[in-house]
C-alpha cells in the first residue's frame, strides 16, 4: 500500500483535512450556532437560573415559536452531519490516528510548554495531547447533548432514556450544561485558531499535503 501511495502521480494529493471532512466541519459549525442561538431563546421562556437571561439580540428565532422552529430544523442538520462525521472518523481510522493515544504525561508536558510560550505551531498535521483531549471531549459532550436533547423533547416516548437524566428538569439542566461546555470549547477553539491562522486556512483549503500514513 505504502509504495503505491508514494509513487502515486495523483494530481490531488491527500490533504491534512480531506474535502468531506472540511464540509462536515463547517456544516457542524453552522448547525451548532443555530442550535445555540435558538436554544438561548427557548431557555429564556423559562430560565433555569434567575440571574441568567440571554439578551434578545444574541438569540435566533425572534420568539419562542420561531426559536423552536429553528432548533428542530437545525437538529436534523446537526444529527445527520454528526452521524456522517462519526461514521467517517471510525471507518477511516482518522479518530484513531489523529486523537489516540493520549498520555497524561504528554498532556502535562504540553500545558507546561504552553505556559512557557514554547509550544511549537510549525507542524499543524499532528495534534498535541491537549488538543487530542479537547477534541475527544467535545465529541463526547455533543453526543451527550444530543441524548439529553432527545430526553427533553420526548420524556414520555423515550422515558427509558429520560430516566438516565433523572427528572424532566434534570434533562434540561444537563442540556444546558452541555450547551455551556460547547460554548466554552468554541471560545477556546476559535481563539487558538486565530492565534495560528494557518489552521483556519487549512480547514478551508485542505492544508498541507500529507502522506497516506499521516492524514
Amino acid at each position, binding site marked *: 500500500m505504502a509504495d503505491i501511495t508514494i509513487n502515486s502521480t495523483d494530481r490531488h494529493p491527500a490533504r491534512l483535512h480531506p474535502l468531506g471532512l472540511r464540509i462536515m466541519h463547517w456544516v457542524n459549525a453552522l448547525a451548532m*450556532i*443555530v442550535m445555540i442561538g435558538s436554544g438561548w431563546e427557548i431557555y429564556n421562556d423559562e430560565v433555569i437560573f434567575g440571574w441568567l437571561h440571554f439578551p434578545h439580540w444574541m438569540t435566533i428565532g425572534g420568539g419562542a415559536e420561531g426559536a423552536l422552529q429553528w432548533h428542530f430544523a437545525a437538529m436534523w442538520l446537526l444529527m445527520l452531519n454528526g452521524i456522517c462525521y462519526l461514521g467517517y472518523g471510525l471507518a477511516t481510522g482518522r479518530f484513531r490516528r489523529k486523537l489516540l493515544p493520549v498520555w497524561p504525561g504528554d498532556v502535562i508536558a504540553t500545558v507546561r510548554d504552553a505556559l512557557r510560550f514554547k509550544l511549537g505551531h510549525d507542524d499543524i498535521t499532528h495534534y498535541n495531547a491537549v488538543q487530542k483531549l479537547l477534541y475527544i471531549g467535545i465529541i463526547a459532550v455533543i453526543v451527550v447533548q444530543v441524548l439529553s436533547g432527545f430526553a427533553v423533547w420526548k420524556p414520555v416516548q423515550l*422515558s427509558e432514556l429520560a430516566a438516565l437524566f433523572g427528572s424532566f428538569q434534570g434533562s434540561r439542566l444537563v442540556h444546558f450544561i452541555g450547551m455551556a461546555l460547547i460554548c466554552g470549547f468554541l471560545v477556546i477553539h476559535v481563539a487558538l485558531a486565530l492565534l495560528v491562522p494557518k489552521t483556519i486556512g487549512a480547514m478551508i483549503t485542505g492544508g498541507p499535503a500529507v502522506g497516506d500514513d499521516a492524514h
Partner: protein
Amino acid sequence: MLKTPSPSIFRPAAGIDQSALKEHKALVEDINRRGLLRGAVSLGALTMLTGCNVTHTDAVQSVLRRISQFNDKVQELMFRPNHLAPTFPESMVVKPPRFNAYYDIEDIAPVDVASWKLELAGKIENKKPWSAQEIYALPEEEWIVRHICVEGWDYIGQWSGVNLKQFLQRVGADLTAKYVSFKCADDYYGSIDMATALHPQTILATKYAREPITDPFGFPLRLRTATKLGFKNPKWITAIEVTNEYRGGYWEDRGFNWFSGI
C-alpha cells in the same frame, strides 16, 4: 413551589421587535474595532441576523413550517400507542396546578355550568349534547402524571375524568378518523391525532386532586393527555369534533409545532 414567572409565550405576541436590527448594527460596528475576536464573532453575528430578522419572512417561514410538518410525521412514527407515561405518588401532586392560557389568570371568564353543554360534531353517530351532570355520571379514571409546558416548566398533576377513547366509543365516533378537534369557551381551539386520543392516559378531565377542577384550570371539562405538551390540552371545552380535516390550533396557527408530543 412555583418558580418566579418568566416572560410568558402565553400572551399575545407583540410582533417583530425592530430594535433587534438596530442593536445588531451596533454589534457589528463594535466587532470591527476588535482584532482578535473579529473572525470569531462575525460568523455568529451573521447567523443571528439571519435568525432574528428572517424568521418571519415568507420564504424562510415556509421552509421552517414544512420542516415542522415533517417533524409531525416523525413524532407520529415515534409515538408508542400503549407505552404509558411515568406516573407518580399522590404525595408529589402540586396543588393548585400551574395556570397557563393565552391571557393572564385575572382575565379568565368562568363557565356557567347550568347552561354549559358539550356539543359533538363530525364523524360521530350520536351527536346529542352532554350536560355536566351527564358527564359526571360516566365512569371515571385517575392519572397522576407530569404536565410539561412548551416553555420548559413542569409539575405533577392528579387528574380524573372519563377516558376519551371510552367516551368516543360510547358516542359512536369513527375511530379511524385522523383528528379529534376541540373548541373552548374562551375561543381557544386545538386538535390532536387519533392515536393520542385513543391513548390510555388521555381523558376528559373533570377533577383535579379528587375535587372538581376550578375555574382557572378548565371547569367544567378539559382535555388531559399525558403524551403531549400543556398547550395541547384545551380547557373549558364546549365542542368535540371527530374529523379527517386538519384543524390546527390556537398556538399551532401561530407557529408552534402541531403534534407537540412528549
